[in-house]
């Protein structure tokens, strides 16, 4: 089964910001010298007076964004997930999250696939860190349609946000009828044997895996959770209740990300056996995308194999 191919999320991100800036003079983009990677260069071409090149200095970029938000602007940040979340965590914490300012931090190039860059540029602790930070809204959209709507929603949602994007992966999950809402999970496949919970572009790989598993007689419910915080606890508990078995799958560490949020939720609301598929405790490496997904168990086939194995073991 070959999934349909849509637009890269980073292109959709830039296109949506170009539209928003035309509608609202408060929308600006601050770049940490990566615009031709994140596609913020498209925004600079469209709105040069609303694009601010802050140089290779992420802490100051986040601090300046907070100042701009404090005087009424709506800044979006353009840098890689690793540099926003790790390098600039302190200004995000003190100047953005604590005062609750509407700065929207984009973590482009999140996860395992960052263009053969290696562990310094990979980011699989970003969901864990951002969701532990008070007041942050954390969103990892799954496809083009959802990215477009999420960028718009976060722009006008008061308060700070982290938007997790990826360099690679341009799946199509949703049609134009889909309506993204902050904090709302969505069932993207019905099933009765097991609930698979995923987020971001990994959901498309999980859907492909679910198709494979159908051939093996395993009927998977797939719950897509684009908003990691606030977490849709009701939807997760309801899905767990329907199948009685939950497996989380994420292009993120198995520590404290989506799997952690699901475990926290179900531990209180609906104690259920939970297995977590994701990146092991570690840092990753450089390599071709397909080889990385395969080695680290996130390709559709590896996910399907892992799920089948887990269910067989009982």
């Amino acid at each position, binding site marked *: 089964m070959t999934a349909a191919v849509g637009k890269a999320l980073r292109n959709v991100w830039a296109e949506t910001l170009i539209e928003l800036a035309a509608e609202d*003079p408060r929308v*600006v983009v601050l770049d940490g010298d990566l615009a031709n990677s994140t596609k913020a260069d498209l925004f600079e071409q469209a709105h040069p*007076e*609303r694009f*601010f090149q*802050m*140089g290779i*200095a992420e*802490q*100051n970029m*986040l*601090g*300046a*964004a*907070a*100042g*701009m*938000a*404090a*005087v*009424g*602007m709506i*800044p979006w940040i353009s840098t890689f997930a690793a540099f926003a979340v790790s390098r600039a965590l*302190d*200004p995000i*914490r*003190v*100047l953005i999250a*604590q*005062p*609750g300012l509407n700065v929207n931090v984009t973590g482009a190039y999140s996860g395992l696939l960052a263009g053969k860059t290696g562990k310094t540029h990979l980011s699989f602790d970003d969901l864990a860190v951002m969701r532990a930070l008070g007041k942050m809204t954390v969103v990892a959209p799954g496809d083009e349609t959802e990215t477009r709507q999420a960028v718009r929603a976060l722009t006008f949602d008061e308060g700070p946000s982290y938007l997790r994007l990826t360099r690679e992966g341009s799946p199509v999950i949703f049609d134009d009828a889909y309506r993204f809402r902050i904090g709302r999970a969505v069932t993207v496949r019905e099933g009765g044997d097991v609930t698979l919970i995923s987020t971001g572009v990994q959901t498309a790989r999980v859907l492909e895996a679910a198709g494979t598993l159908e051939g093996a007689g395993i009927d998977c419910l797939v719950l897509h959770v684009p908003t990691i915080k606030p977490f849709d606890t009701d939807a997760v508990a309801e899905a767990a209740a329907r199948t009685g078995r939950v497996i989380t799958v994420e292009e993120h560490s198995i520590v404290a990300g989506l799997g952690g949020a699901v475990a926290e939720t179900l531990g209180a609301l609906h104690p259920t056996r939970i297995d977590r598929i994701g990146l092991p405790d570690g840092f990753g490496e450089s390599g071709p995308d397909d080889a990385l997904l395969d080695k680290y168990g996130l390709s559709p086939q590896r996910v399907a194999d892992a799920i089948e194995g887990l269910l067989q073991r009982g």
Partner: protein
Amino acid sequence: MTDTSAETPIAELEEMGRQIRVLVLEAVAHAGAGHIGGPLSAADILAALYFRVLRIRPDEPDWEDRDRFVLSKGHCAIGLYAAMARRGFFPIEELKTFDAIDSRLQGHPDMSVLPGLDMSSGSLGLGFSAALGMAMGARAMGRSYTTFALLGDGECNEGIVWEGAHVARRFGLDNLVAIIDHNRLQQFGWRGATPAERTSPYEAGELASRWAAFGWQVEEIDGHDMKAVVDALEDARDASGPVAVVALTTKGRGVSFMEGSYPWHSQVPDPVELRQALEELGMPDGILGRSGR
């Protein structure tokens, strides 16, 4: 209420500096916690800002075109609170809640609870970046206000300060003023001739040359000469690019046994020390004390 205090005479500003010092000492003694050395070195600068230079409206703290002020050296919060209270942003009595549970006067400035506070701060260096963003925002939105940030000299150890200084010059921001309270001590600092002697974070002239090297206009002044402080800040407002005012000050200024003494960075005076300090400042009964400390 007028939105500027431009007519406040120098002698009255000096008196405000004295009252800020008295309020700082009383509030810290009352709270049993807080910083003293830095607020005392910055008191004259805060008096000049809040009673003369800043275009602000205490009865309309959210006025969109107000000048912005960021206390980047956030640990001097009580100095800022004293200035704001004395200027009429909130009752002076409220200074007794400094550092108390549920207080709007948090140990470090929290904009989410105190109207009139333009930015939260406390993790050093960050406030300056936020001030930079406020100046960028003013230009982007066509607003004419000026943003002032007060930094410590020790704070200039932080790399983010120089990240911000670089882009402020590149953007040619003529609406951003950095004031460096160069009191020549930091919390602990580098050892001098003996363990009790600590060296200045920067040598004489070093800070001025650094800011100049980053393309800023620099003026070095005596930070306790009120006329020099006022003139430098008013000139900075009219400058054609970002201005750094390096204010040479004394940590613990105004109290003999606190001046130049690094432990008074955050030491709390006992009743005898408080009494002596208030006497040296010429207000033995204090200000808060009159309403029943």
